[in-house]
């Protein structure tokens, strides 16, 4: 359900993977490369890398947890790796459910847990040169 992408992501293709006959609500999250890092520094872009197999299996666990918590939801995600410029899509998480309550809740859960647990790393590439690997808050379990 998680795909690691080496080329630009098409969010519509991720959405298409979750649609089913009786889904009434689809919530899709796009994570996009911002021109400013959280500490205010300007970036040209971000560099991502992943431990593909483990990221995929960790996200399978996350999707299973989402179904346990929120019922019959379909979850799909795609995370890009390599060098991304400002404005490019780094991650897409899409969830379809019968009703919007579960779609919102499960999409939020899936992106939060993906960020917290999936073995994926991000380096900020600064406009004024250099770069730094940045961890998300609340790493690990």
């Amino acid at each position: 359900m998680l795909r690691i992408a080496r080329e630009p992501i098409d969010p519509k293709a991720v959405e298409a993977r979750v649609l089913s006959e009786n889904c009434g609500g689809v919530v899709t999250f796009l994570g996009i490369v911002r021109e400013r890092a959280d500490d205010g520094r300007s970036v040209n872009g971000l560099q991502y890398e992943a431990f593909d197999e483990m990221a995929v299996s960790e996200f399978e666990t996350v999707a299973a947890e989402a179904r346990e918590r929120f019922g019959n939801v379909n979850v799909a995600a795609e995370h890009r790796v390599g060098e991304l410029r400002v404005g490019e899509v780094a991650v897409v998480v899409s969830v379809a459910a019968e009703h919007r309550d579960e779609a919102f809740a499960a999409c939020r859960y899936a992106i939060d847990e993906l960020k917290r647990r999936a073995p994926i790393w991000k380096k900020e590439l600064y406009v004024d040169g250099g770069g730094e690997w940045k961890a998300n808050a609340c790493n690990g379990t």
Partner: protein
Amino acid sequence: MTVPTRVRVLAFARIAELLGAREEELALGPNPRVEDAWSALAQRNPELTVLKPSTRAARNGRIAAFDEPLADGDEVAFLPPVGGG
């Protein structure tokens, strides 16, 4: 005569940068643990030492404690704090 335990090490992000490689083969002594693979790397790259408290290990694709034993042919990955999304 001691037969070495051969393991494949995967490194990521800052750890890979410090090692200058994302992947390497290590020949460890008898009854090695994850710990020993880490130490072999840190000996050559002392900058790794300070990263240990924030580093998690995975053995054959599953999170493993540093005192987990390694077998010949195992894959050990060292994972810095994640930053996906």
